[in-house]
Each structure stands twice: as structure tokens, then as C-alpha cells.
């Protein structure tokens, strides 16, 4: 039993995670005719809380309430994994990334997210503010403009062989490559 728990607490390999995430697609379809997609929840929250008479937020969001139940599950699951199955060791990070981040004064390399960039304290630094506030804005604006995120397009859309989802996925990756390799190094220098 202890051995099993130790194994569960170590980081899970990609193929286990990939299989389980892939199975969420048929699971949602079969238990309730639901299509996998998370970014829609941001819209439902806007529609429920701040519709402001904008046509885009006038729809029957209550019909999509199931998706908020799904998101609450994600929060609970992450809590359980962190409280009871937490990895006792430090995060393993690629050596190249480590040295690049060291040069850019990102020093917390032990946690899932670096404290230097993502915390209430970091919000008062220019680089922390840019990553958290502007980065978050781009996630919310971009996913809705693209009509879906990694789950709706890259996983659900590709699972159903939809070429618009392939276009979206390629653009997600392209945007990420540009940011990480060409823009982020400059943002991280703004201390």
C-alpha cells in the first residue's frame, strides 16, 4: 500500500496523463452529451455576473451550468492531489531552462510556479504584473476570439478531426513559441 502511495505521489508520466485526459472526451459525451471545453466557463461567468446588456452574454447560460460543476471538480481534484498526493521532492527542471531563468533573476525553481513571478508580492513588480494581468487578459480574450482553448480545440476539436481546430491549435503553439523565445526574455528583465 505504501509503495502504491509513493508511486502515486511521484510525478505521473505523460502517457498516463494523456490517456486519462483523452478519455474525458468520451466520458462527457456518454454521461450527458457534453462536449469538452473549459474556456466557455469564462463566458458563462461573464454572462451570469456581468452581462451589461452585451448581446454576446445574453443566452441561456443556465443550460451550461454543468460546465461550472466540472470546473469545481477540477479545483477539488487539484486540492486533493496537492494535499494528499503531493510530490515530496523538488520539481525537476531542464538544465538549460534553469540557467536561462537564473540569468533572468527567476530564483524559485522548486515549486510548480515560480514565486518570483506568480504571487501577490510579484504583482507589485513590473514583470509579475505583466505576466499575471496582461497574460491573463490575453488568455481570456484570445480563447473566446478563437472560440475555444486547448481543451475545446486541441483535444476535443482534433478528436473529431475538425480542421478549424487544427488551425487554432497551430496558432496557439505559434503564439507560445513567439512569446517564450522572443518576448518573455525582455519581460523578465523588467524587475
Amino acid at each position: 500500500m505504501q509503495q502504491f502511495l509513493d508511486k502515486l505521489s511521484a510525478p505521473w508520466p505523460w502517457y498516463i496523463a494523456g490517456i486519462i485526459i483523452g478519455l474525458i472526451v468520451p466520458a462527457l459525451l456518454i454521461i450527458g452529451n457534453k462536449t469538452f471545453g473549459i474556456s466557455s466557463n469564462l463566458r458563462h461567468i461573464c454572462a451570469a455576473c456581468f452581462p451589461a446588456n452585451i448581446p454576446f452574454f445574453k443566452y441561456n447560460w443556465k443550460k451550461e451550468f454543468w460546465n461550472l460543476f466540472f470546473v469545481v471538480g477540477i479545483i477539488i481534484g487539484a486540492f486533493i492531489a496537492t494535499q494528499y498526493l503531493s510530490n515530496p521532492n523538488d520539481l525537476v527542471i531542464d538544465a538549460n531552462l534553469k540557467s536561462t531563468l537564473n540569468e533572468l533573476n527567476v530564483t524559485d525553481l522548486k515549486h510548480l510556479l515560480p514565486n518570483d513571478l506568480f504571487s501577490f508580492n510579484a504583482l507589485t513588480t513590473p514583470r509579475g504584473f505583466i505576466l499575471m494581468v496582461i497574460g491573463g487578459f490575453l488568455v481570456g480574450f484570445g480563447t473566446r476570439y478563437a472560440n475555444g482553448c486547448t481543451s475545446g480545440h486541441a483535444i476535443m476539436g482534433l478528436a473529431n478531426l475538425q480542421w478549424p481546430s487544427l488551425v487554432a491549435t497551430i496558432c496557439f503553439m505559434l503564439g507560445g513559441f513567439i512569446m517564450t523565445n522572443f518576448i518573455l526574455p525582455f519581460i523578465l528583465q523588467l524587475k
Partner: protein
Amino acid sequence: MSTINTPKQQDEMLDDTSAYINHSEKSESTLSLLKYTIVGIIFGIVFVKAEIISWFRIQEMFRLESFHMYGIIGTAVTVGIISVAIIKKFSIKTISGENIVIVKKKFSKGQIFGGLLFGLGWAMTGACPGPLFAQIGAGIGSIIVVIGSALAGTWTYGLLKEKLPH
């Protein structure tokens, strides 16, 4: 899979927005909705245990320093393709006996412009929308600010939608 045969019917099934993704005609009780919470819990555990919610894993992906995220997305897509093919081939129904509906995605330029903008944000925050919620569950309270900004982004898109190229 519902029987959608004529092109006209197929067009009607094209969804203007993939936000409407409940294709069940039946309304469900709160108790019944808890089954989605259970699926979500499994998803949340995987997010944390496979370190998908880590900013570092996303940087490694975009710097081509690790196979981990590519392996996860590639496996998930493969399992998804096989699952959807099996559902269609055998006309598998939902547990309540409904035909399963999978709406086609309609192309718009938004997938290019919005996709690029989301990609920039994904690399900055190190998280797409699912992991943002998981980070809250993992106890990183400051991420509520990132989610607040994401809501502001979605709201701004709703405000400007008609003025943007699609």
C-alpha cells in the same frame, strides 16, 4: 451519433459558438450534475500530478526542451480520436439513451487572430483555462488575479466582437 444526413441539416448543426456545448435535451438535477464534478476531480488530480499546471513545463514545451507536454497532448488527442470514432461507428448513446451529438467547428479568422493572442497569453501565464482553475485548487491563491484578468479579457471580447475581423 445523431442522424444528420442532408447538407442543410449539417449546416444547421454548425455552431456559431462552441460555448454552447450542452447538446442534451434533458435538464438535469443538481445531484445529477455532480457526475461532472467527479470527472472534473479526476481531471484536476491529473493536472497537478502530471505537472501540467506548472509554468516551467509550459516553458520547456515552447523551448523544445522536454517531450512531456507533447506526449500528453499527443496521447490525449489519439485516445480522443479513437473514442469519437468508436462512438460514431457503433452509434453509442448516452447513459440516458440520447443520440450523441458532436457539433462541427466553424472556421473563422478568429481561430488565427484569437489563437495567436491566446498562445502569447498561454506562454506568459504558463496556463490555459483548465490549469488556471487547478492552480487555485493547488493553493496558489494569487492566481485569482489571473482568472479575474481572463474574465476581463472574455468580457472585452464580448464588447468588441462586432468590430473585430472574423
